[in-house]
C-alpha cells in the first residue's frame, strides 16, 4: 500500500511518544546521572566520571553473569525452536483439534511469570513435587534431585521451566506460518512425488522463514531479560548458579544498594540490548522485503 507523505502525522504519534518517553527517557537520564556520581545520601553526590564503568567492566561477577546469560539464551534457542517446529507440524489442520491444541498451547503463556516459578517449585520439590519425588524414587541419580542443593540441578530445572513456558510460543508462530501455505503447494509436491522430508525442506521451511526469524529473535531477546521465573524458583542460587543478568542487576541495586555500579551496569546491559534490537529490526525489515518480492 502506497503511503501518503505528510509530516503532520507526527501530531498523531506525539501523545504515544510522550507517554512512552515519560517511562523511558526520563528514567534513563536518571540512570546516566547515577552512573557518573558517587551518592552518599540526599544532596551529597560527587562526580566520579567513568569510575563505575571501569569497575563494572572489570567485575568478574558481571562477566560470569553475562557468560551464563549467553549459555542460557543459546540453549533456549537450540531446544525451543526445533521442538516448536515439530509440534506445529504435528498439530491437526482442521476440526475441533485445532482449537483444543491452540488453547492448550496458550495456557502457559497467560500465567504470571512468578507463578510459573511457583508451579515449578511445587512440581519439582523433592518432598512434595511430582517430578522431584518421581525421579528420586527411581533411584537413578547419584545425588538425590533437589534444585536448591546442586547448581547443575538448579540449571536444568530453570531451563526445563523456560522450555515448558515458551516453546508453545514458537509452536504458535510456526503453526501460523504453516497455515499461510496455500494447499496447491502441497498438491504440486504430491504430483512431483516429493517425500515428506522434501516437502518440509523445500516448501514448509522456506515459507516459515519469516515467522521463525521472529521466533528466534523474540526468544533471544526475552530470555535475555528473564527475571521473575528464576527469581521465584531459585532466587539465583544455589550460590550464583542461576544468577542471570537481570537477577544480578536487581541484587546489586536493591539488596546491596550500590547505586553507582548498578547504574553503570544498567547502561552496559541496555547497550547490549540495543545492539541486539538493531540486528532484530534489520532482520525484520529484511524478512518483510523478501516476502513482497
Amino acid at each position, binding site marked *: 500500500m*502506497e503511503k501518503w507523505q505528510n509530516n503532520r502525522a507526527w501530531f498523531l504519534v506525539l501523545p504515544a511518544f510522550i507517554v512512552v518517553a515519560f517511562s523511558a527517557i526520563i528514567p534513563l537520564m536518571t540512570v546516566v546521572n547515577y552512573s557518573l556520581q558517587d551518592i552518599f545520601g540526599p544532596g551529597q553526590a560527587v562526580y566520579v566520571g567513568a569510575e563505575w564503568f571501569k569497575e563494572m567492566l572489570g567485575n568478574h561477577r558481571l562477566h560470569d553473569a553475562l557468560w551464563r546469560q549467553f549459555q542460557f539464551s543459546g540453549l533456549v534457542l537450540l531446544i525451543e525452536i526445533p521442538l516448536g517446529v515439530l509440534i506445529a507440524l504435528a498439530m491437526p489442520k482442521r476440526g475441533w483439534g485445532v482449537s483444543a491444541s491452540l488453547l492448550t498451547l496458550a495456557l502457559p503463556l497467560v500465567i504470571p511469570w512468578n507463578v510459573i516459578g511457583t508451579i515449578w517449585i*511445587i*512440581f519439582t520439590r523433592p518432598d512434595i513435587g511430582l517430578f522431584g519425588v518421581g525421579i528420586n524414587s527411581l533411584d537413578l541419580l547419584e545425588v538425590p534431585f533437589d534444585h536448591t542443593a546442586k547448581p547443575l540441578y538448579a540449571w536444568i530445572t530453570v531451563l526445563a521451566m523456560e522450555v515448558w513456558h515458551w516453546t508453545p510460543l514458537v509452536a504458535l508462530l510456526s503453526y501460523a506460518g504453516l497455515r499461510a501455505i496455500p494447499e496447491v503447494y502441497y498438491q504440486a509436491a504430491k504430483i512431483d512425488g516429493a517425500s515428506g522430508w522434501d516437502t518440509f525442506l523445500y516448501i514448509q521451511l522456506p515459507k516459515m522463514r519469516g515467522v521463525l526469524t521472529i521466533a528466534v529473535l523474540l526468544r533471544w531477546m526475552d530470555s535475555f531479560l528473564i527475571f521473575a521465573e528464576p527469581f521465584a524458583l531459585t532466587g539465583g542460587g544455589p550460590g550464583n548458579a542461576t544468577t542471570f543478568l537481570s537477577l544480578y542487576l536487581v541484587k546489586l541495586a536493591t539488596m546491596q544498594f550500590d547505586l553507582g555500579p548498578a547504574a553503570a551496569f544498567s547502561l552496559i546491559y541496555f547497550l547490549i540490548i540495543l545492539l541486539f534490537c538493531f540486528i532484530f*529490526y534489520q532482520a525484520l525489515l529484511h524478512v518483510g522485503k523478501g516476502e513482497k518480492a
Partner: protein
Amino acid sequence: MRIQKRTIALCIYFGLLILPIYWMLNMSLRTNADILSNFALFPTDITFKNYFKIFTDPTWYMAYINGMIYVAMNTVISLAFALPAAYAFSRYKFLGDGQMFFWLLTNRMAPPAVFLLPYLQLYSTINLMDTHLAVALAHCLFNVPLSIWILEGFMSGVPKEIDETAFIDGYGFPRFFITIFIPLIRAGVGVTAFFCFMFSWVELLFARTLTITEAKPIVATMTRTISATGLDWGLMAAAGMLTIVPGALVIWFVRNHLAKGFALGRV
C-alpha cells in the same frame, strides 16, 4: 500409520504441558498438613479451604482487585495512545518514521531491571508511589509499543480508499476515526486489549517495586509470602490457580490471533 504416531507424540507433549498445572491444582485442593504428610497423585480428601481463605481474607482478595485495577487502567491508556499513533504509521510517511518505530521497539525489549531504580525515584518525586496509576503508567513502557505494532498490522489491512472516500464526503479526521475507522478494526482493538491485559497481568518486577500496601497486586503478594513465613503450599497453589483463571477465560476469544499478538503483530 505416520499420522497416528504424530498424534500420539502431540498428546504426550500436551500431557507434559498440563502436568505441572495439574499438580498445582492437586495441591490447591488439599490442606498443608495433608500435602506434607502424604504423597498422592490424586487428591483424596478434597477441600476448598484454601480458596475459601483467599476469598474471605482482604489481604488476598484485595490483591486480585488491585491487579485488575491497574491492568484495566493500563489497557485503556495503552489503547487510547496507541490508536492514533498506529494510524499514523499505517497511513503516512513522515520524517523519522523508521527511527521512531525502532525506538518504540527498543522499549518493548528493554530490561525492566534497568528501570527499577529510576522508577522508584521518579514515582516518589511525583507522589505516585503505591498507586495503581504508577504501575499502569510503568507498564505503558512495553504495552504502548506493542499495541502500536499490533494495531498497525490490522489497520494496514483496511484499504486506504475508505479514508479517501470519507474525507471527500466531508468527514473531519476525529469523526472519521471514531465513527468509521475504529469500528472497522474492532477485532484488532479486541486482540490488542487482550495482549495489553495479559502482559500487564503477568509482569512482576514493576508491580512489585512500585507498590507497598495500598496497590499491592497478587503477583507481589505471592513472592512476599514465599520469602517470609513458613510456607503454606496449599494456599500458595490456590492463589496461583486463581491467577491463571482470567487469562484462561479470554484466550478462547483470541485463539486465532494469538500468534499475531505474541509476534508483535508481525505474522
